């Protein structure tokens, strides 16, 4: 079965096709090949979301995973972050959850929370 991807390395947005024998076609440059290979074997994404706080002035603080996490863990990680409450002043870049789901990625603040 042929799988189809849109390469997002540059604005051109080549439609790249991969067949069962891993023949890659449709990309206009080499970068498209490595993009599709990563997407096929181990697609990763950075999650950006918010965490609840106890502070009235800042009810939500924005957070992210500091390195990309496997795409299939997105929903599990969202669930964990939604269960956490920031209850003390924290600075931008501080770790809220370390090594989430053993991914080697930390969830860090992307905005300082009253600090």
């Amino acid at each position, binding site marked *: 079965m042929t799988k189809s991807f*849109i390469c997002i390395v540059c604005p051109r947005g080549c439609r790249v096709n991969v067949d069962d024998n891993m023949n890659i076609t449709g990309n206009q440059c080499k970068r498209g090949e490595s993009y599709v290979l990563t997407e096929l074997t181990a697609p990763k994404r950075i999650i*950006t979301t918010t965490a609840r706080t106890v502070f009235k002035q800042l009810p*939500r603080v*924005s957070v992210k995973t500091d390195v990309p996490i496997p795409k299939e863990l*997105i929903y599990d990680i969202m669930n964990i972050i939604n269960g956490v409450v920031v209850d003390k002043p924290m600075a*931008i870049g501080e770790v809220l959850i370390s090594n989430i789901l053993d991914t080697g990625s930390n969830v860090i603040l*992307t905005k*300082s929370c009253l600090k």
Partner: protein
Amino acid sequence: MKKEIIVIGGGASGLAAAISAKKEGRDVLLIEKEDRLGGILNQCIHNGFGLQVFKEEYTGPEYADRYINEFYKNNIEYLLDATVTDVIKIKDGFEITFSSRKTGIKKVNTNAVIMSTGCYERTRGSIIIPGDRPYGVITAGSAQRYLNIDGYMVGKNVFILGSGDIGLIMARRMHLEGANVLGVAELMPYSNGLTRNIVQCLNDFDIPLFLSHTVTQVNANKNQRLESIIIQQVDEKYNPIEGTEKNFKVDTLLLSIGLIPDITLLDNLNVEKDYKTKSVKINQSYQTNVSGLFICGNSLQVHDLVDNVSLESERAGVCASQYVLSQTTKANKNVRVVAGKNLLFVTPHYVDFSSESSKIVFQFRSKMKIEKSMLKISQDNKLVKNKRINFVVPAEMESITLNIENFDSSNDIVLDLEVL
């Protein structure tokens, strides 16, 4: 009290303009209407910012933080929770009226003004969707603010009209927070958003994109809440095609149908308008035809990357500073810049040969997608400069920087984008 430069708006644009003007040694006051600096970046919690300026990938709040720190370091005077209500031209400058809970209504004079007021979202009223007028029809940017800053969802079953970047980003965001995002409809046969956002916000989560479709009916329930919408395919003249109706049961319709520069403060000044950018005309110093009035960022032209907003506003800050120092009077050696073949618009609109800025940064958008193109800049039918540009799309603004020495001061400067 008189200032040398007043910057209106403390978002990405205002911060960069104020910092650069202050670094040039000017006495600067920045006025921000919200209770914090950073503007719309505060609610743009997704990443992808800063690759050009910082060579790093930041989220919106992180990008803002870098500039806010720099702003504090330079000890720039600023007001929060203060809304500018009037800008009036007086002898030797401007009188600015602002209103804040702390100070009441105050006036302050200044030599120069930098408008960095950003843009606002087009609403339902500007596209006339037939049907009821229920709660639940809201702009994508407002929903983004409610969710990311205030922490509540505007609905559970969501449809999005318009494939602008904010709409795409909100499709993913609401999906990840548990909403059922049923689809995105785009009137044009192509998306207006960045390809990266189509892939990572829609395709990643199997959210369908209906190209050449629009919302043709909005239905309310008896409590005046949104109950359902109908979308229809459109023909090449954008007229709905009968028989293509699709019904969606939704409680929320997000609108991501475009941004308009916010220049309402300039209504009482006689500023020359550009009906393409929906803002005003400027010369290469970001100065309007009202001397001392500068404009930059999304209030000048809607950008797709914040990095370009910062860089542009930094240049505007330097130009405003030069103006204050030299007190240049009305610009008179103006040559027109013309958006020629295949171009939607070009800024600046004029090149002022009496100005101290010898660098001209032309920014433009193409009218259509072109695989291989040649940008030709000419005067009096003579080619001044050409540049090959591969893959141009309307959604991505392009630029080229030239020195004023390349041009003569008597003929229009024409930019054409030739298809190769």
